[in-house]
């Protein structure tokens, strides 16, 4: 479902520029349009709208907003219809890499590096996953280490299964979803190891993705070392309830150890939200349901039109 791809943008100054065409960005645009704003531009780095929903082929989306259980891709498709009715200008394959305190954004696209300004700039840039490097887990640097979201892109978009014998480190939702997903594709998941004493993701994901598939969740289990010269061969871990250490063989590690709101554009520019700079969706804080991202985004969008932002 391709969206109104155009070659160049229509104006050099907008009422609102929204960075990111995922669920948050689309919702802000819909809200702003409904409140009467006319010149709205969404800049999306990928060739199509939808953001991370495009790789979420599992169900669990839409119960609150559409009163119906949908997959992520269905949710995106439904919402894109609403979005298109709003008549908002979209520029895809456009990567924003700079925001200035004068409310100017710089973006790169196949037509060039362009500048555009607006009364309001909204970061709807989502979040990124924490990685093995951020935890500085000791050991080797073999092939076979992925974030759960990257594995999701590999399996669901490109149809490739990263490995056959998997350990998931961290019990975030994407990790739980991907544990089930790789099992459905024929891999074995040894376990989900969580350093904390409680699950990080949603309980329903634990039931539907781990319990229903016989995948064990080990709480208070700390990963101590990654083993394997060329390919991951095993991990060494410790059960922090007993202090006992052990080794678990595997050929692939999926990390689901937290999400970081993506706000580097503001951090790099040294600017804070406020005074026409806004943050929406998971770039603001990590929501557990996309439905809330949509509702919050629409509300923020409307407030821009009503002048109370």
């Amino acid at each position, binding site marked *: 479902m391709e969206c109104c791809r155009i070659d160049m943008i229509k104006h050099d100054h907008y009422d609102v520029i929204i960075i990111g065409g995922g669920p948050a960005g689309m919702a802000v645009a819909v809200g702003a349009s409904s409140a009467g704003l006319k010149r709205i531009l969404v800049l999306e780095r990928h060739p199509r709208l939808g953001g991370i929903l495009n790789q979420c082929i599992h169900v669990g989306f839409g119960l609150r907003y559409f009163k119906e259980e949908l997959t992520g891709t269905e949710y995106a498709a439904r919402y894109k219809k609403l979005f298109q009715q709003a008549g908002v200008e979209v520029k895809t394959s456009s990567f924003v890499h700079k925001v200035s305190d004068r409310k100017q954004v710089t973006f790169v696209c196949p037509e060039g590096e362009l500048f555009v300004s607006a009364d309001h700039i909204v970061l709807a840039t989502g979040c990124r996953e924490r990685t093995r490097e951020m935890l500085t887990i000791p050991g080797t640097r073999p092939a076979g280490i992925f974030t759960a979201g990257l594995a999701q892109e590999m399996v669901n978009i490109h149809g490739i299964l990263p490995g056959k014998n998997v350990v998931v480190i961290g019990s975030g939702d994407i990790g739980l979803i991907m544990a089930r997903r790789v099992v459905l594709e024929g891999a074995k998941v040894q376990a989900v190891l969580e350093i904390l004493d409680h699950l990080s993701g949603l309980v329903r994901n634990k039931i539907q993705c781990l319990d229903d598939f016989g995948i064990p969740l080990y709480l208070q289990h700390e990963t101590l070392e990654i083993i394997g010269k060329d390919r991951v061969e095993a991990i060494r871990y410790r059960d922090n309830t007993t202090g006992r250490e052990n080794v678990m063989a595997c050929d692939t590690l999926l990390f689901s150890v937290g999400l970081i709101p993506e706000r*580097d554009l503001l951090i790099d520019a040294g600017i804070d939200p406020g005074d026409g700079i806004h943050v929406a969706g998971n770039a603001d804080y990590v929501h557990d349901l996309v439905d809330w991202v949509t509702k919050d985004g629409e509300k923020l969008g409307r407030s821009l039109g009503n002048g109370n932002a």
Partner: protein
Amino acid sequence: MKTDVLIIGGGIVGASLAYELAKYRVDIILLEKEAELSFGVSKANSGIVHTGFQSDPGALKTCLAVRGNELYKELAKTLDFPLLPVGELVVAFPGELKGLQRMKETGEKLGIPGLEIVNRNWIDANEPGLSREIQFALLGPTAGVINPYETVYALAEQAAANGVHIYCDHEVTDIQAVVGAWQVQTEKGSFTARYVVNAAGLYADKIALMAGTEVPRIVPWKGEEYLLDRHAEWLTRRVIFPLPRKETKGVLVIPTVDGNTMIGPTAEAVPDCEERSTSRSGKLAVLASVKNLIPAVKEDQIIASFAGVRPTTREGDFHIREDREGFINLVGIQSPGLTAAPAIAEQVCRMLAQSTDLTPKEGYIAGRTAIPRFRLLSNRERNALIKKNPEFGEIVCRCELVTKAEVKEALRRGARTLDGIKFRTRTQMGRCHGSFCTMKIMSIMAEELQRPYDSISKRGKGTEMIKT
């Protein structure tokens, strides 16, 4: 296959030699056992172009390092690789001033220019992050930093442009002396050469043995390095050293070419040349040592860690010798080997010139242009590139702002693995550690190299991204 000179090893030493020797009318083949050049010792080098004053003044390696330092400036210009002339500072804690003075005298005898002992006022003005305990420091303004792998690729590209044949994934399995030549076996074929130069790094002693020559044994000596986020940009402007100990130069603070600060390395003898794991104890030791130098450094600034193995010998000095006729061993090229490499290449050329005619090559192609680095260009330069090739307008790596055109250019210049692309373009090196770009790069590789996904590897055979 027949050639005049066969170089075994495609690290900084082998590549420097290939580059230097390609100026002359000789046929040259370079064999590398890894999937790409620099993947052995060089890729994990700290990247410092030393002044030379820290090594034993009587040693061969010191002379070569001093000469190498001089050569790098011209080399970086000719081959268009970044060399930042940051300078180095050896810092002294109370009671260590004498050591600094001795070091300065040694350096001056070696002809190293600009050495100066600076006091706390200078430090306050120029390196305010240094610990208050540090009262004096020895400034070596001629030190610099380079990217070791980028330098290897620059040298090798220039060598290849001038006719050097480079074969990666070619591990030498046996060497035989035949009449007037050497026969070198690999699993992918046999090579006959009048001269063989052994620049095999960690395996140089084993290669020497295959040719029946005796050289000092290699003692693999591991070092862990930790890279800090660019938010902590350049904690110091210069390379900072404590006063060196006998076995290593200690834990350093290194401003890298790319604007991150690197701290390390540790120093530990390991039983295995391929032992490149990092450890919690290593990280804590590095942090503790660096905190002595720069109290503000913090653990949560670390964004990446890696380990490399140095090819040291008990003898300590470089072994550069024609140990049998036509067989030249370059063994124990440990620190300051990166600095010395261009001078080692000159030295080997002089050795070869004693028994063969080295006449300058007609039609030698001088100069090379680096892959454009989109992130570092102005708006006007960016738009000029995009106009010529719209793939400069497709961002593949979000953290380092690397474009599809740069990735494709890296492939055109010989990258065959994800690490090879990383080292040439800086994709996968930023804050997201490849979460965003890995699949995009794999798709570009699959398309450009016409290879299935399951053959695409991180750094060569055995490291395929997909386990089938």
